């Protein structure tokens, strides 16, 4: 039983880092602005998951608070950018 969880943690972390690289590729290349916003959305979710893996590894709860904050601000940023594309301004009078 020794170490199967540690190996699984390493595998999941590798998967998330590869997913972040793919999102970076789409962020740099994406033909439209909406592609870039979608790539940014994927990117911050994957970064949050890497932080969660670090939290499981270290056994402290600080990483979960950071992950919650990243989820919160990433959502606000994505919706603001999408609203800007949709209406031309973020907060309408």
């Amino acid at each position: 039983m020794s170490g199967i969880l540690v190996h699984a943690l390493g595998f999941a972390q590798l998967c998330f880092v590869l997913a972040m690289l793919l999102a970076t590729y789409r962020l740099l290349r994406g033909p439209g602005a909406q592609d870039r916003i979608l790539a940014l959305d994927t990117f911050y979710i994957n970064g949050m998951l890497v932080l969660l893996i670090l939290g499981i590894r270290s056994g402290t709860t600080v990483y979960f608070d950071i992950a919650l904050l990243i989820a919160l601000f990433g959502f606000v940023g994505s919706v603001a950018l999408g609203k800007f594309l949709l209406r031309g301004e973020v907060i309408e009078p």
Partner: protein
Amino acid sequence: MTLETLPAWAALPAALLLIVGGLCTLIGSLGLARLGDFFQRMHGPSMGNTSGTGFVLVASVLVSTALADRPIVHEVLITLFVALTSPMTAMVLMRAAIHRSGARRNPE
């Protein structure tokens, strides 16, 4: 108790959930990078993010419950938040893409 000496009832399901979650997220991001159209690309991350976050957080609940010997469920908050907000982001982006591509004009 450390991660290496975790009991098997928590270590095996947590490892399985971590592997499945990582693969789901990787496949979703691969779809984001590989598919041809924006409206096709939309599907990959929506699947991968929600299911990957769900699996990883269930694994995290298992591990921290086994480490502390009492139920710890505050990670569920992140799952709930991501599951609530990911469809909203997808919907706003989809409407923006339809608006920008000019596919739906008002007939009046």
